């Protein structure tokens, strides 16, 4: 589904990704871990299409298409979803209206008619229960006055509404208490099926107790330096990142 080949990217003069390769198939959950400043969030932003970065080499294929040629909104409509680390607030725009616009933009892209109001409301009701989001949030301005946990739950709710092929969770667990973490993870687990894939970016092994990854990648200095199964995450937690540095000889 997603294939990243030898990706190099920089922001200004600073090279952040230095030859990153990654392959994600449908039905898989991949976790990316690594110390601060190794380019994890950069990778998420680049896949989603944020324009601050310059790709100097390499390519990203999404279902065989060259992702780097598509605009961020086209990528989204093709089925790439990014759950933001810091979701923005949009005053005066309710989650309902926002989601309606997003769902219809996607439907239009796939040659479908706009969703019928009744169907949309039923869908919203079903999906909000997935992350235990109270009905009242849907009519409030999106993310305005939401707590950190509510914002993250709202991101997962939006993910559920848009049913993406590839979902990237950029440190969705940061700032969550244990209950909110479990709700978010449960939501993800319920959405997981053999047609979609998840890329989970995290600092802590904690989240991976709930969202069990098929692969764990350790990122260091703009590259994936080690790949393993979920036991690798446990090993990281136990030994810290210095162990990786020794292992790769830096």
């Amino acid at each position, binding site marked *: 589904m997603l294939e990243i080949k030898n990706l190099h990217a920089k922001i200004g003069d600073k090279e952040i990704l230095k030859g990153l390769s990654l392959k994600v198939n449908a039905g898989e959950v991949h976790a990316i871990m690594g110390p601060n400043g190794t380019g994890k969030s950069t990778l998420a932003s680049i896949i*989603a*299409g*944020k*324009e601050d970065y310059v790709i100097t080499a390499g390519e990203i294929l999404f279902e065989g298409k060259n992702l780097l040629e598509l*605009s*961020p*909104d086209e990528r*989204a*409509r093709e089925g790439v*979803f*990014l759950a*933001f680390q810091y*979701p*923005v607030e*949009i*005053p*005066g*725009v309710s989650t309902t*209206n*926002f989601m309606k*616009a*997003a769902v219809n*933009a*996607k439907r239009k*892209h796939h040659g479908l008619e706009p969703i019928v109001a009744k169907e949309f409301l039923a869908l919203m009701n079903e999906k909000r229960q997935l992350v235990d989001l109270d009905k009242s949030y849907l009519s409030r*301005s999106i993310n305005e006055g939401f707590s950190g946990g509510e914002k993250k739950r709202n991101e997962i709710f*939006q993910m559920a509404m*848009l049913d993406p092929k590839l979902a990237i969770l950029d440190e969705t667990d940061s700032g969550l208490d244990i209950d909110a973490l479990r709700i978010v993870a449960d939501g993800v687990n319920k959405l997981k099926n053999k047609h979609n894939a998840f890329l989970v970016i995290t600092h802590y092994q904690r989240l991976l107790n709930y969202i069990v990854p098929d692969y764990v990648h350790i990122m260091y200095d703009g590259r994936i330096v080690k790949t393993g199964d979920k036991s690798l995450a446990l090993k990281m937690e136990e030994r810290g990142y210095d162990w990786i540095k020794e292992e790769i000889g830096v």
Partner: protein
Amino acid sequence: MIADTGTKMIHIGKNTRSRIVSKGISGGKSQNSYRGLVQVHKTAENAYNFSQCDSLLLGDKCGAHTFPYLEIKNKSAQVEHEATTSKIGEDLLFYCNQRGLTNEEAVDMIVNGYCKEVFKQLPMEFAVEAQKLLSISLEGSVG
């Protein structure tokens, strides 16, 4: 474009209250000024005014300016003024893009959200017209 607009609110009677909400949107290279005069006459015992002036900037070549004018002749008056300026920044646009909306769809939605407080006070037919007019005048305003 340069727009220099404003309002006047004159308090003459006792215990009068007023509220002004001004919402300005500047796009392209336009400059928008709001001048709000609030007059409280000697006779207006216990007058109260609240003025809120919000400005929304589309892009980084436009500007917004707010000039409150207060002429208060009665010491019992209470006059409040609040002004905000916000910008449709890249982060906001990227967030909307990431949900599948084009820049134009995103701006349309953000601007409508911004105007909602005023639009919802208008009679239905007029609100619909205002919304359409807004969409037309915003076409191509964000590059």
